C-alpha cells in the first residue's frame, strides 16, 4: 500500500515537471519549424515570464488574473522585439549566426533581469493555496494547475494549427517558405507570430513553475536543458514529440531518482537522449532524413 502511494507520488511529480519541460520544448519546436534554428534563449523566456509575474503581482500588487494576463501580454510584446532584434536581422545569414545571436540574447536577458530585480530569488504563491491529501500522497495544487494548463494548451495547440486559417498559414510557412510566399502568405509576419507565441508559451511555463521552483535567474537554463533533450527524444521539430518527450523525461527521471539514485537524477534525461540517438536517431515521432525529401 505504502509502496503504491509512493509510486503514485513519484509519478505525479514526474508528470508535473515533465509538463513544464513539454511547454518549453513546444516553444523550441515551433521556432525550429518556422526558422530552422534552435532558440537557446527559450529557457530564459520562462524565466522572464516568471519575473514579469513577480513584477505585476508582488511589485505592483495587482490581482492574480490581471497580473497573469499582463505577464503573458508583456511576453507577447517581448517575443515581437526578440523576433526583430535577435532573429530578423540575421535571417539570411544561415543557421550559426542566428544560434549565436540567441545565445547572446540569453546572456543579455539573464544579466538584465539580474540588474533590474537583483540576485535574490523571488517567491511566487500558488494560484490556489494548499493541495489535495489522499492518504500519504500529497498533490500540490500548483502541480495540478500545471497539469491542467498543459492539457488545455495541447488541445488549444491542436485546434489552432489544424482548424484555423492562421494556424494553417503558420504550418505552410514552416513546411516550405518559398511555396508559402508564392501563395501570398506573409512569411516574415508568420515568423514574427511564431516568436510571439513561443515567447508567451515560455512565459506561461515560467509563471506556472515559479511557485514550485521559485523565481530565479537560473531557473530557465535548468528547464531548457531538459526541454531541449525532450525535443530531440520526441523527434527534432515534431510538435507531438516535444510534448511526449517532455513528459517522458519528467517521468523517467522522477522514477529513476526514486528507484536508482538521486544524485544522478540529471543524468537520466541525457542517458535517455543517448539511448534514443543510438537506437532511434530520428526520435519518437521524427521522420527519417531519407523519408523527408
Amino acid at each position, binding site marked *: 500500500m505504502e509502496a503504491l502511494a509512493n509510486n503514485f*507520488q*513519484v509519478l505525479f511529480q514526474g508528470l508535473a515537471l515533465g509538463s513544464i519541460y513539454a511547454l518549453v520544448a513546444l516553444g523550441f519546436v515551433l521556432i525550429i519549424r518556422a526558422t530552422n534554428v534552435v532558440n537557446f534563449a527559450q529557457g530564459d523566456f520562462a524565466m522572464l515570464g516568471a519575473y514579469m509575474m513577480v513584477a505585476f503581482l508582488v511589485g505592483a500588487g495587482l490581482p492574480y488574473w490581471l497580473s497573469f494576463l499582463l505577464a503573458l501580454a508583456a511576453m507577447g510584446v517581448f517575443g515581437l522585439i526578440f523576433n526583430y532584434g535577435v532573429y530578423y536581422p540575421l535571417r539570411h545569414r544561415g543557421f550559426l549566426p542566428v544560434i549565436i545571436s540567441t545565445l547572446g540574447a540569453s546572456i543579455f536577458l539573464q544579466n538584465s533581469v*539580474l540588474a533590474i530585480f537583483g540576485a*535574490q*530569488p523571488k517567491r511566487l504563491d500558488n494560484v490556489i493555496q494548499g493541495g489535495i491529501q489522499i492518504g500519504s500522497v500529497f498533490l500540490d495544487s500548483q502541480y495540478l494547475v500545471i497539469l491542467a494548463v498543459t492539457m488545455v494548451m495541447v488541445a488549444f495547440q491542436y485546434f489552432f494549427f489544424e482548424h484555423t486559417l492562421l494556424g494553417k498559414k503558420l504550418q505552410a510557412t514552416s513546411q516550405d517558405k518559398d511555396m508559402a510566399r508564392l501563395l501570398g502568405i506573409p512569411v516574415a509576419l508568420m515568423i514574427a507570430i511564431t516568436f510571439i507565441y513561443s515567447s508567451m508559451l515560455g512565459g506561461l511555463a515560467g509563471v506556472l513553475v515559479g511557485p*514550485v521552483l*521559485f523565481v530565479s535567474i537560473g531557473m530557465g537554463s535548468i528547464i531548457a536543458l531538459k526541454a531541449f533533450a525532450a525535443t530531440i527524444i520526441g523527434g527534432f521539430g515534431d510538435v507531438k514529440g516535444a510534448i511526449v518527450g517532455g513528459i517522458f523525461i519528467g517521468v523517467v527521471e522522477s522514477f529513476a531518482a526514486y528507484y536508482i539514485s538521486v*544524485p544522478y*537524477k*540529471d543524468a537520466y534525461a541525457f542517458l535517455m537522449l543517448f539511448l534514443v540517438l543510438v537506437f532511434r536517431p530520428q526520435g519518437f515521432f521524427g521522420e527519417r532524413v531519407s523519408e523527408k525529401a
Partner: protein
Amino acid sequence: MRNSLWGALAAGVAASFFGFTAIAADTVKIGLIAEITGPNAEAGNYTLNGAKLAVDDINRKGGILGKQVELVIEDNQSTNPGTVLAFSKLGGNKDIPAIIGPIRSTQTQAASPSIAKLGIPTMIGGSDPSLTKVNNRWLFRCRPSDLYSSRVIANFGVNKLKLKKWVIVHSTDAFGAGGAKALAEALKEYGVEPVLVQGYTNNSQDFTPVVLAIKKSGADVIGSYMTNSQDVGIFAKQLRQLGVTTTWIGSASIVTDTAMKLAGDSLHNTYGIADFNPDANPAARSYAAAYRARYKLEPDVYSSWAFDAMNVIATALNTAKSTQAEDIRKAIVGIKGWKGVEGTYNFDDNGDGLRGYNIVKNEAGKVTFVEHIDFNK
C-alpha cells in the same frame, strides 16, 4: 621597537612634507573574488556588501599602513573556471598583497593550485576541512571548517536534543560531500551510525525521492549540508508537504535570509548552525547594526565572513608593517584572540582561524541564538 617607532614617525613627517595628496591617492589594493553573476549572484552581492562595509570602516580608522584601502573586484561567475581566471587576473597585478577569495569549497579547490603558485595570502570561506590541509601555505580560512560544524551539529543533536536516529542529506559538490562525511565521522564519536546518507545535485527541481527515502528510514533527526538556499527552500516545502515533521539541524544555508524567505513556515522550528549570528557577541551586534543601517538588509554569513576577512587582512598588514607575502603570512598565523563578528580568531599553522559555531533556531521566521559551541582543537 624604538627604531621602528622612529622610522614610522620619520615616514609620517616625510609624508606630510612631500605632498600629502600624492600619498593619499596611493592606495592599498585588496583583491576580492565574488559571485557577481551566475546562479549564486545573490550571495556574491552580500559578500560585496560585507567587504565594502569593512573597507569603509578601516579607511575611517586610518586605512592600512597609513594608506586608504581600495577593493579590486573580480567576478567569478559563480563557477570554478571563473574563479581560476579571476585569480590569474588578480595575481597578475603586483600591487595586490592579499585577496579575499571564494566562500565556496569547490571554487577554492579549483583555484588552490594557482594560489599556491602565485603565493598571495588568500582569505577563504569554503568550509570543506581538507582545503587548508593540501600543502598550500597561502590559504587562510575566516570561517570555521565543517570539521567543527559537523561536530557542533552532532554534539547538539545527540547531547542536547537526545536524538539518535540520524539521516544526512547533502549536496554532492565538494562542500556537501565533505560536510556529510565529517558529520558521519562526528556522529561515530557518539556511537551513532546514520540510518541514511542521501545526496542530491545542486539546483534539483524535485526532492520527492529524497523525502520518501527519509520517510521510509524512520529517522528522528535530519542533519543537512545543502549548498544553495534555493534548494533548501524547495526541499523544506516538499518535506513538510509530504508530512515529515522530523527535527532538522542544517548547515549555514538553512538560516540564510533567502532560504527563510522562500520556504516560509516550512522552515519554522528547524535548527541551523551559523558561524554568524547578530546576537552571538558584541562585535557581531555592532556589525549587524551598521549593516542594517547601510543596506536595509539582514546581515548573513555571506557578508559577515567577507567583513571579517577584510579586517583580518588589515590587521595582518598593519601588524606586519609590510606588504610582502611571507610577512603577511607570519602576521596572520600570529593572530590570537582577535575578536571578529564570527567569533574569536586563533589562527593555526594550517591557516584555520575559527573552531566553533553558533546553534540557532528558526522561530516563526526569526533566527534566534541558542548557544555557541567551541572546540579547542
